[in-house]
C-alpha cells in the first residue's frame, strides 16, 4: 500500500470511528425518544458510508457485515421492521463489532476465533429480522460511494462546438413564498437561446401526505443552446440566485469543469452521467477522454467504475438507459444513499485534520516567541527609544493574538467526551438493574485537547461510582418516594480561568458515619481526632477506600477514586464533593483551561519572581501595618466588612524579605473563595509560557512550573490549588498541636 493510500486509510479509520460514535448516540437517543424518520435515515447513511469506504480499501469482512446491517436498516426505513428496544440493543452490538472489524482490518490482522463467533451470532440475529432470508446477502459486492479526486488536468479540453450548455437548477423551498415562478424563469431562458431538452426531477417532490404545498421542491436538468458566455447565463439567473442552486456545465469545458460539475451535483456520478448521455450533453468523445483520464489516475473510485463504458457500447446502453430513466422509486433510493457522500465532502472542506504533533510543535514555538517578545519589550524599555518601544509594543500585541489563536486551535468541545458516557451509563445501569437517565449540559464548553484526553478516565470513575454507590436500586428509590429512574447529570462550564465539570446524581448521598468508620477501620485516619464533614467526604479519595458492602464488577474494590484524585492533580485541577442525604452527591471537578501558555500576574516576594494565573486575581491592595494592627501574627484583614484570610508568602516559601519594601495583598479567587497573598512588589500582567520544573523539583508543593521572563530570569508559577491544600494541611497540623481551630479554607 503506498503512502497516499495509507494516509487516506488513516482518514477512513478516524472518520469511521466518528461515524460509529454518532451512530451510537443516535441509537441511545432513539432508545429514549420516539423514533423519527430523520434519525433512521441518519443511521442508514452512517452504515452505508462505512460500508462504502471499507469497500474502497477492500475490507471484505467489514463490507459483508455492514451490508447485512444496512439491509436491515433499509427495512426499518421502509417501515417493514420497527425499531424497538431489542433491535436497538442488537444494533449497538453490531456497532461495536463493526468498530472491531475495522480495527482488525486496518491493522491487517486476522479475526480472532471469538470474534468470528460474535459475528456469527450477530448475523443469525440480524437475519432473523428478514422475513425471507437472503442467501446472497453475504456475497454481494460493495458499492463504493466516496469519490476521490487527485490533481486534475485543467488543460484537457473536452467541450464540443455545439454550444450546448448543461444547467442543473434546484429551487429552494421558499421560492414560491418569495414570489418566484420557475416557469417564468425557464421561459426567460428561451429568449436568449434554446432549451434543447429539459427533465423535471419528479423524485425531488415528496409524497402527497408529506408535501408542504407552498414549498418548492422542483429541480430541472436543462440542455441549453446559446452562444452567449457564462457570465451572461449567470446574469439571467441573477434574480433567482437566492432561491436557486445552479450548477452549470459550459460548452467550452475542460475535463476539470466536467469533474467539478459532477462533484457539485447531489446526484451520483453514474446517475448524472446517464442523464447527460441521455440528453446528449456529453459526446462519446468526452466519455472516452474521461475514461482515459480515469485509467491514468488508476484510483479506486466510483467515477472510474461507473463511466468505464466502452464508447462502442454507448448506443446500446443509452437506449437501455432511456427506458430505465426516471424510474421514480429508483431515483429516490439513489438520492437517499447519496447524501452521506455529499455531507462528508462538505465537512471535509471545512475541517482540516492535522497531526497533533505538528500542533504541539507550533504551540512550543509560539511559547518561545512569547519569551522572545518579552525580551525585546524589556530591552526597548531600557533603551528608552520611543520608536523601538512602539514597534515592540505593536509586535507584542500581535504575539499575544498569535498565542491566543494558536491555543484556540487546540480547543475542543467537551460534548463528544460527554456523549461517550451515554453508552457507559446505559451498560452499567443494565448490569446493575438500575434505570438511569444521563442528562448532559454545557457540551459546547471548550477546553484544551490535551486536557480532554486526560479527563476521560477520572470522569469515568466518578460516573461509575455515582451509578454503583450513589443511585439506589429501583425498589429502594420507589420506597423512598423518588422516581424509579435515576438521574445523572454531567455539566460543564467556565469559571475564572478554569473549566468546571460536575457529575451529579440524585442518589442516596454519602454516608458520613459509614465513611468515617470505614476510614478508621482501614487505618486511613486516626480514630481520636475530630473531622469536619468536608474532611470526611474527602476520605473517599484515599487509596484503598471503599464503603461498598459487596464488591461488584463496576466498583467497590477500592481502586478508583484515589486514581481520580491523582489524575486530577496531575492536571493541576481539584475536586470538591457536595452531598446531601437522599438528595444525591455532586462532584465538582475543576481544571485549568490550558496547560501551555497562560496570562499570568507577575510579582515579587523577596528576590524571587512569582506568577499566578491572571484569571484568578481579583484585586490588589496595598498592605499597611495599620490595617492589621499590632498583632503581626494575625493572618486576616477586614476587606470592606468581610474577613479576608491571607497567607504570608515570604514565610511560606521562606524567602528573605527586602527591608522597608512595600508590601501588597493580592486577592485570589479560587473554588468560590477569596484568599489573600501577602507579597512584595507588583509587576503586573505577563504572558506566561509554562515550563515544567524537571524531575528534581517534581515533588515541590505549591509550585507547578516555571517561566522565563523577558530579562532571562526565572519566575515560579504558583499552583493555587495545591497551595490551598498545603496550607490546609499545615493548619490542621497546627490545630492538632495548639488545640484551636483556624482555617484558611
Amino acid at each position: 500500500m503506498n503512502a497516499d493510500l495509507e494516509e487516506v486509510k488513516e482518514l477512513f479509520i478516524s472518520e469511521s470511528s466518528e461515524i460509529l460514535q454518532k451512530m451510537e448516540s443516535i441509537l441511545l437517543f432513539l432508545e429514549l425518544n420516539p423514533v423519527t424518520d430523520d434519525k433512521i435515515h441518519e443511521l442508514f447513511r452512517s452504515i452505508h458510508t462505512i460500508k462504502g469506504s471499507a469497500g474502497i480499501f477492500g475490507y471484505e469482512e467489514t463490507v459483508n457485515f455492514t451490508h447485512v446491517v444496512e439491509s436491515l436498516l433499509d427495512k426499518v426505513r421502509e417501515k417493514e421492521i420497527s425499531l424497538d428496544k431489542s433491535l436497538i440493543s442488537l444494533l449497538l452490538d453490531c456497532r461495536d463489532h463493526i468498530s472491531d472489524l475495522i480495527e482488525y482490518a486496518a491493522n491487517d490482522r486476522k479475526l480472532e476465533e471469538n470474534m468470528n463467533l460474535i459475528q456469527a451470532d450477530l448475523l443469525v440475529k440480524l437475519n432473523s429480522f428478514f422475513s425471507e432470508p437472503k442467501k446472497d446477502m453475504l456475497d454481494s459486492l460493495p458499492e463504493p460511494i466516496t469519490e476521490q479526486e487527485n490533481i486534475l488536468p485543467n488543460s484537457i479540453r473536452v467541450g464540443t462546438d455545439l454550444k450546448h450548455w448543461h444547467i442543473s437548477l434546484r429551487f429552494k423551498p421558499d421560492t414560491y413564498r418569495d414570489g418566484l415562478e420557475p416557469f417564468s424563469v425557464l421561459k426567460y431562458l428561451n429568449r436568449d437561446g434554446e432549451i434543447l431538452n429539459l427533465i423535471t426531477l419528479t423524485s425531488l417532490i415528496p409524497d402527497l401526505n408529506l408535501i408542504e404545498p407552498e414549498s418548492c421542491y422542483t429541480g430541472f436538468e436543462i440542455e441549453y443552446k446559446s452562444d452567449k458566455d457564462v457570465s451572461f447565463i449567470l446574469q439571467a439567473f441573477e434574480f433567482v440566485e437566492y432561491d436557486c442552486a445552479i450548477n452549470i456545465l459550459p460548452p467550452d469545458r475542460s475535463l476539470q469543469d466536467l469533474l467539478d460539475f459532477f462533484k457539485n451535483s447531489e446526484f451520483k456520478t453514474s446517475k448524472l452521467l446517464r442523464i447527460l448521455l441521455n440528453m446528449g450533453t456529453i459526446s462519446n468523445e468526452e466519455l472516452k477522454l474521461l475514461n482515459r483520464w480515469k485509467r491514468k489516475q488508476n484510483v479506486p473510485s466510483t467515477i472510474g467504475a461507473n463511466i468505464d463504458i466502452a464508447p462502442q457500447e454507448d448506443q446500446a446502453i443509452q437506449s437501455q438507459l432511456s427506458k430505465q430513466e426516471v424510474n421514480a422509486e429508483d431515483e429516490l433510493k439513489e438520492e437517499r444513499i447519496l447524501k452521506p457522500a455529499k455531507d462528508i465532502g462538505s465537512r471535509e472542506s471545512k475541517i482540516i485534520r492535522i497531526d497533533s504533533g505538528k500542533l504541539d510543535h507550533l504551540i512550543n514555538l509560539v511559547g518561545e516567541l512569547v519569551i522572545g517578545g518579552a525580551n525585546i519589550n524589556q530591552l526597548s524599555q531600557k533603551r528608552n527609544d520611543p520608536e523601538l518601544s512602539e514597534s515592540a509594543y505593536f509586535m507584542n500585541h500581535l504575539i499575544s493574538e498569535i498565542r491566543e489563536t494558536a491555543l484556540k486551535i487546540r480547543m475542543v468541545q467537551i460534548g463528544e467526551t460527554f456523549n461517550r458516557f451515554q453508552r457507559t451509563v446505559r451498560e452499567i445501569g443494565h448490569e446493575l438493574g438500575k434505570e438511569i437517565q444521563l442528562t448532559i449540559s454545557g457540551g459546547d464548553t471548550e477546553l484544551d485537547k490535551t486536557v480532554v484526553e486526560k479527563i476521560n478516565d477520572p470522569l469515568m470513575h466518578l460516573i461509575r461510582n455515582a451509578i454503583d454507590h450513589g443511585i439506589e436500586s429501583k425498589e429502594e428509590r420507589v420506597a423512598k418516594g423518588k422516581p424509579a429512574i435515576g438521574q445523572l447529570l454531567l455539566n460543564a462550564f467556565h469559571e475564572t480561568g478554569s473549566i468546571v465539570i460536575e457529575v451529579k446524581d440524585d442518589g442516596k448521598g454519602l454516608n458520613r458515619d459509614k465513611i468515617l468508620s470505614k476510614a478508621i477501620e482501614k487505618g486511613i485516619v486516626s480514630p481520636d481526632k475530630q473531622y469536619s464533614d468536608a474532611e470526611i467526604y474527602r476520605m473517599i479519595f484515599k487509596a484503598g477506600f471503599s464503603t461498598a458492602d459487596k464488591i461488584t464488577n463496576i466498583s467497590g474494590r477500592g481502586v478508583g477514586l484515589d486514581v481520580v484524585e491523582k489524575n486530577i492533580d496531575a492536571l493541576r485541577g481539584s475536586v470538591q464533593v457536595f452531598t446531601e442525604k437522599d438528595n444525591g452527591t455532586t462532584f465538582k471537578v475543576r481544571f485549568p483551561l490550558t496547560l501551555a501558555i497562560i496570562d499570568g500576574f507577575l510579582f515579587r516576594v523577596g528576590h524571587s519572581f512569582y506568577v499566578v494565573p491572571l484569571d484568578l486575581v481579583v484585586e490588589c491592595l496595598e498592605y499597611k501595618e495599620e490595617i492589621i494592627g499590632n498583632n503581626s501574627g494575625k493572618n486576616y484583614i477586614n476587606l470592606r466588612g468581610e474577613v479576608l484570610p491571607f497567607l504570608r508568602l515570604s514565610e511560606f516559601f521562606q524567602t528573605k524579605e527586602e527591608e522597608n519594601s512595600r508590601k501588597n495583598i493580592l486577592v485570589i479567587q479560587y473554588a468560590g473563595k477569596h484568599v489573600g497573598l501577602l507579597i512584595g512588589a507588583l509587576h503586573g500582567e505577563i504572558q506566561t509560557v509554562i515550563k515544567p520544573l524537571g524531575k528534581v523539583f517534581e515533588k515541590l508543593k505549591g509550585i507547578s512550573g516555571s517561566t522565563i521572563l523577558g530579562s532571562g530570569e526565572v519566575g515560579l508559577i504558583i499552583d493555587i490549588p495545591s497551595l490551598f491544600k498545603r496550607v490546609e494541611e499545615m493548619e490542621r497540623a497546627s490545630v492538632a498541636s495548639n488545640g484551636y481551630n483556624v482555617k484558611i479554607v
Partner: protein
Amino acid sequence: MSLEVKIQNLSNHCRVSLIGKCTIYNVLKLRQSLLEVINRNQNILVDLEKVNDFDTAGVQIFIAAKNTTKQTQKKIKFISHPTCVIAILDLYGLVGFFGDKIVLTAEERKEFPFRYGIKKQSMSGN
C-alpha cells in the same frame, strides 16, 4: 383566485373536477382534496377542463399525487388538459411522466412541440 373541487363517486372510480386556479394560492386546498380522494379511492380521474390557471406549485402537487398513487398501486388519471396546463407539462417535459392522453387542437399542436423530458408513452392528437 378561487378553486372549486367537485367530487363524484362513481361505480368504479372517483371523478374529481377542478374548477378555477390550480396555483400557489390554492395549493393547500388542492393538496388536501387530492389527498383525501386518494386515501379513499383506488381509481381517480381528475378532470382539468375548467382549470384556468396553473403554475409550478400546482404541477408539484400533481406529481406528488402521481408518485403517491404509484406507490400504493392506485391509479390517477388527468383528463381534458386546458392550454395553461399543457404549456407547463410541455416545457417541463412531464407528459411522459404522467402518461395521460392529451387531446390537442390544431393550434395547440403547432404551439407545443412536446420534445422535452423522457417520453414513456406516445400521445395522440386529433
